[in-house]
């Protein structure tokens, strides 16, 4: 068993290092594109952690939803509006940083307190069901977790309708907040001809 345990430990160490360093990179890097790609790496490593916990279905779902859908859409949006402009300087950046750091540290201390007080060990080691988990998840989704599941789908439907309303501006003729008639022109501005200004 020692080889299996060693392998598991090495994998766990590498995955947690990638999660922590990647998450720091997402927050601290200046380039938003790098942040988005690092976010994908963090999602992948979290999926790897699920795999180590014998939750293969959750791991695959994590990859499919977070990497394949959420992260791709984030990168897609960043590249569609790929503007190269500097961020506006903020006046009271120092006090803002102090406030956000203190909030983050408070949350961190709360989490550490949770980690130290809660009893994490399972009642019996036979509790892990491994490959059976897909069936068990399905049973739960259609019995005791039915209401949250359906409410989540209603939420997604609402988000979709909202996106359609925002994207198709001919749905509403008046601006909701000001009451002025909405500009119905195309969003794209006519671009300058490529060759005239080159001389």
């Amino acid at each position: 068993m020692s080889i299996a345990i060693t392998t598991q430990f090495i994998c766990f160490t590498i995955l947690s290092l990638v999660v922590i360093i990647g998450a720091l990179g997402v927050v601290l890097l200046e380039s938003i594109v790098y942040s988005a790609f690092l976010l994908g790496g963090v999602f992948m490593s979290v999926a790897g952690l699920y795999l180590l916990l014998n939750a293969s279905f959750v791991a695959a779902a994590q990859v499919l939803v977070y990497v394949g859908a959420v992260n791709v859409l984030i990168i897609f949006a960043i590249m569609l509006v790929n503007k190269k402009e500097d961020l506006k300087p903020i006046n009271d950046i120092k006090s803002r940083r102090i406030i956000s750091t203190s909030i983050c540290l408070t949350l961190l201390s709360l989490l550490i307190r949770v980690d130290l007080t809660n009893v994490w060990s399972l009642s019996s080691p036979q509790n892990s069901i491994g490959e059976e988990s897909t069936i068990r998840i399905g049973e739960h989704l259609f019995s005791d977790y039915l209401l949250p599941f359906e409410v989540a789908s209603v939420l997604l439907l609402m988000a979709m309708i909202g996106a359609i309303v925002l994207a198709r501006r001919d749905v509403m003729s008046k601006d909701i907040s000001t009451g002025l008639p909405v500009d119905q022109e195309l969003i794209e501005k006519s671009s300058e001809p490529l060759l005239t200004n080159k001389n």
Partner: protein
Amino acid sequence: MEYGLDLEYSFNEFLRGFGLSSEIAHIIWLPLPMLLVLVAAVVGVLVTVWLERKISAAAQQRIGPEYAGALGVLQPIADGLKLLVKEDIIPDKADGILFTAGPILVLVPVILSWLIVPFGQNLLISNVGIGIFLWIALSSIQPIGLLMSGYASNNKYSLLGGLRAAAQSISYEIPLALSVLAIVLMTNSLSTIDIVNQQSGAGILSWNIWRQPVGFIVFWICALAECERLPFDLPEAEEELVAGYQTEYAGMKFALFYLGSYINLILSALLVSILYLGGWGFPIPVELIAKFLNLPINAPFIQVFTASIGIVMTVLKAYLLVFIAILLRWTTPRVRIDQLLDLGWKFLLPISLANLLITAGLKLAFPQFFGG
């Protein structure tokens, strides 16, 4: 149905005969099937490239490669060697890290997906419980690599190609997953082994293609779109976008894209044959033939025979589908991007949803035919 060759067990027994512990034997065993499948995938790519050249030549009334080996069979190897020794260029204004990571991210998920491709009862790398779902999840990673290389090239054609690839991949993943879901509904399992075994009852008559004709067509169209094969090769449409996200790539990095797309094509063909065409099953059940010839099904030489028939059948079905894909590539025009997205969202998605609903109804109404 627990017969058939179990190479892993015999190999471990063999090594334990030399006094090795079962753990060491397992570690020595682990890389062998992986290497074998990797070699099989690369050889499959070489064969497909040769087929593509020969069939395209036939479709255009040319001869095609002729001088490299008999009938030009060595041409793909020459191509590969050429790409291997070409200079590796990273454009001056490109983003070096992302430019290098892009092709790797495109290739690795495709190769990982070979984990679940079975060539026989025990002839696959790992019979993971989530089976076919693993492939769907892994194939959703690919667009990140495409976006990455499109962005890092610092070239507007590359960026447009990358964006198109991602949009196309996202749109066609949904009907693809829904048509797989209909199969899973009938099988009661995500494992590829179970999916094939469920189709092995009456030979060719029990293949899923008869029970899921709509799903088969939807899956095949979506698989072609995911592979960016010609009716849907907008991301690299050469007349519009030079070569899409591949424009700035040369040498080995280009070869990774090339390899990735062909491995993906073979993988898709293999999965279509597993999901809809009975996988390793012979059109007439092998047990029936053995009974007819009065041979015991568990005899060693019969098992070797059935295993080799299984491999041959899987590869044969897959290459039949690859042939259809190549023929489609050289005979159909490219669709426009709006036609592509319309086809995905307004046609395939509703049809695959209806297919799923009807499958569920049929499963409840005729449990003996549609998997109770």
